[in-house]
Each structure stands twice: as structure tokens, then as C-alpha cells.
């Protein structure tokens, strides 16, 4: 057994999962108030399979628009703080080294992808995480920051006009904010699937901190 995840990582991981679920559910409630993108009176050439339709009650939190807003703006604070606590911990502890995807990880990531595609029979050697995991975790944390930034851009489009402008204006910022939901949903599904299929011991490690699986080395 090796000690794998610090208590800060485990706590922020599960808190984040819970808060993200609440943010998405209340966000879908808010979306239903005006289930379109773009300004009034102009068709917007952006892909949206949910154009004109709200989401079912089981996917929503808040009951009505005001309820959705109050949940969303209340959960947003712990959501941001949890994310910050996680990133600060990674930096201070040096754990970022085993998580941050860097140029030297490109080739190992390709080898890992080949393994998953069945083009390579043996699992490439890895440390705490393989290069594809680093890519996934680096990307998802960056996208989390982007979700927060685009959220602020549509929350205060006049006061934070520069931020809103970075996303291409209010209407586009709202679209990116919505699009990120589906990236998080897809990531979570794949994340859970890979944990269950490839390395079940990693689930236990994320709960207890201790790892007893196939990839015990720690880089």
C-alpha cells in the first residue's frame, strides 16, 4: 500500500463533485427560462440540441428561475473556494508535478492512447498518473477556471465588460458557459468508466488515501 491522495485532495475532489452537480442542476434550471442563445430577433448559428426546450425536473435544481439563481449564486462561492484550495494545495505541496501536462508528456500520451486503442498490447510504464491522465486533469481544471470566468462574464457583463469581451460578448459567453456543462458531463462519465474498468483501486484511494493497485510508483 502506498499513500496516494492527501486529505486536501480527497476532500476537494468529492466536494467539487457535489458542488459541480449542484451548479449544473441549478444552471439547467436557469437555462430553461430562455432556452435559446444569441440576441433577441436574430437566429444564432451555434449548435444547440436543446434549443427551445427546457430540461426535465430530475435534472434541475431550484424549482423556478429565482430558485435556480439563488442555488447557483450560493453554490458558486464554495465551488470557487474548493477549486482554489485544490490548486493552492497542488502548488504548495509540489503535487502539481505529477498532474500538470507538459510538452514532454506528449509522446507518452500518444503511447497511452495507442494502448487504449488496442494498437499496443502492454500498458506503458507510468508514475502516479499516466500522461493521458495528466492531460485530462490539466484540461479539466483549466476548463473549471474557464467555467467560473464565463460565469462571471454573464453575471456582470457591464461591470466586468472586459471579461465578457474576452468571451466574445454576453451572448457568446452564455453559450460557452452552457457548452462547458457538457464537457464536464462527458469528462465525469469517462472518468468514472475508466476508474471502474482500468483501476478500481484508485477509487478506494480517492476515499481513504491509500492505494493498493497496479500502478504503485509515485513520480
Amino acid at each position, binding site marked *: 500500500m502506498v499513500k496516494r491522495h492527501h486529505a486536501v485532495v480527497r476532500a476537494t475532489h*468529492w466536494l467539487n*463533485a*457535489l458542488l459541480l*452537480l*449542484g451548479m449544473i*442542476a441549478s444552471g439547467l*434550471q*436557469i*437555462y430553461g*427560462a*430562455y432556452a*435559446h442563445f444569441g*440576441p*433577441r*430577433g436574430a437566429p444564432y448559428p451555434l449548435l444547440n440540441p436543446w434549443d427551445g426546450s427546457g430540461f426535465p*425536473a*430530475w*435534472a*434541475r*435544481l*431550484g*424549482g*423556478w*428561475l*429565482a*430558485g435556480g*439563481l*439563488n*442555488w447557483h*449564486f*450560493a453554490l458558486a*462561492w464554495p465551488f470557487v473556494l474548493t477549486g482554489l484550495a485544490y490548486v493552492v494545495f497542488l502548488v504548495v505541496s509540489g503535487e502539481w508535478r505529477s498532474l500538470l501536462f507538459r510538452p514532454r508528456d506528449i509522446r507518452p500520451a500518444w503511447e497511452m492512447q495507442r494502448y487504449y486503442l488496442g494498437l499496443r498490447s502492454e500498458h506503458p510504464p507510468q508514475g502516479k498518473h499516466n500522461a493521458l491522465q495528466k492531460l485530462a486533469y490539466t484540461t479539466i481544471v483549466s476548463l473549471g477556471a474557464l467555467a467560473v470566468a464565463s460565469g462571471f462574464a454573464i*453575471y*456582470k*457583463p*457591464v*461591470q*466586468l*465588460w472586459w471579461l465578457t469581451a474576452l468571451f466574445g460578448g*454576453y*451572448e457568446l459567453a*452564455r453559450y460557452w458557459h452552457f457548452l462547458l456543462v457538457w464537457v464536464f458531463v462527458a469528462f465525469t462519465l469517462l472518468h468514472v468508466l475508466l476508474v471502474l474498468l482500468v483501476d478500481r483501486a484508485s477509487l*478506494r484511494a480517492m*476515499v*481513504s488515501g*491509500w492505494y493498493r493497485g497496479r500502478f504503485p510508483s509515485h513520480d
Partner: protein
Amino acid sequence: MTEPGLSRRDLLRLGVAAGPAALLAACGWDGGPTLEPRLRLFSRVNDWVGEKILLRRQRPAPEYPVSARTEPNRFPAYSITYNDTRRYPGVPQVGEWAVEVGGLVRNPLRLTSAMIEALPAVTYTVKHHCVEGWTAIGTWTGVPVSTIVGLARPTTEARYLRFDSFDRGYYNGWDLASAMHPQTILAYAWNDRPLMMNRGAPLRLYSPIKLGYKMTKYLTKMTFTRDRPGGYWEDQGYPWFGGI
């Protein structure tokens, strides 16, 4: 003792599973009698951040060219009276309608249309943000609320401004800082024409720094207060500050 951490681990696992399960069961739910009031209370934190940290009191919202205006019939309009009866609030008798400015002021006023239109006006083409998520661009003409504040001279006790209407009790409470913003106006024209009934004639509050529901239409009264006034939607749970 081969597995000293087992029971603790199981407990943790249970706890972790219980969270999402509870949340899933809660979906479509406003928080219930216990949580919902707490969420509203927490909303006051965001009101404070909006007013005291993020609001730039004098910086104007961006203006747009007239060519960017939303097609008039695609610019939504509603009123409480219309929602209830499919009719807009009755036009007040010309000559009888006036805005009463009172409360904590040194100089209470009764402003008629003629008096308001004689004051220096501003015209701007700005983006309207609805709490529902849509936007639309229109041109508004009116007198800055700050001009009225200057005439009424509120006392140092005044901290909020309450706007009342003849639309079935619709009203809004505003922080003075947002009310004093140079683009917060009492509007009497939309897209270069006198305001129509669906837009809040004869006079309505308008500001590009607030969400649509903060802009009282069919104005009848402006009252300076020490205590925070609520609002038609705000009392039902919508964020009070509503600044953008």
C-alpha cells in the same frame, strides 16, 4: 487487524454516496421551508458584493449604434396587469398623472410630464439584459434620476430609493449608488418615439446597469427611505440587487 481503516473507509464511502443521492432527490426543488430562506439570505452577500465591490458608480455601460437596435416587435414587453388581464394598465388621465417624490427629502416634488420633459434629457442606445437570459438593444430617452435627486435633496439618512407604479402594486427598491448612476433615467421615449403602454408609459425607470425586472414601469412614486425596500419579484425570491 489486517484492515484497520476498513470501517472508517466504508463510512466515508457511504457519506460520499449520500451527498449526490440527496441532491438528486432534491432536484426541481427550491430548498424547501428550511433551505430556501437561507438561500435568500445568502443572496444578500451577493447583493453586497454587487453594490460595494463590483459596481463602478460613474462608469457608463457601452452604447451601441442605432443600427444595432432589436426589431421593435422582437423586443419583449410585459406588465403584471397584462399577464393577469391581457390588457396593459389603464392610461392615467392626462393632467392628473404625476410622479410624487417624497420620503426622506428636504424638498418633496410633484412632477408632471411637462415638468419632466423640460429637464435636460439624455438619450442612449444600450443593451437590455433580462434575468431570463435574453438581450435586446433599444434607444431610451429620459431625465437622469440623479437630476431628480438633486432637486429633491434627500436627507443624509436616505439610503434607498423606492419606485412605485400603477401596475398592480409592482415596485422596486434600489440602492442609491445605482440610482445615481449617470445612465439611470426616468424614460419617456423609446426608439425616438413617446413610450407606448407596453413599455411603461407615461414614465418608467430605465438603466443599462440593472436587469430588466429592476426597472419600474408606469411610475407613480419615488420614495427615499432609510430601510431597504423590497420589490415585486424580489419579495418572491429574485436577487434584490439585480445589477449587472
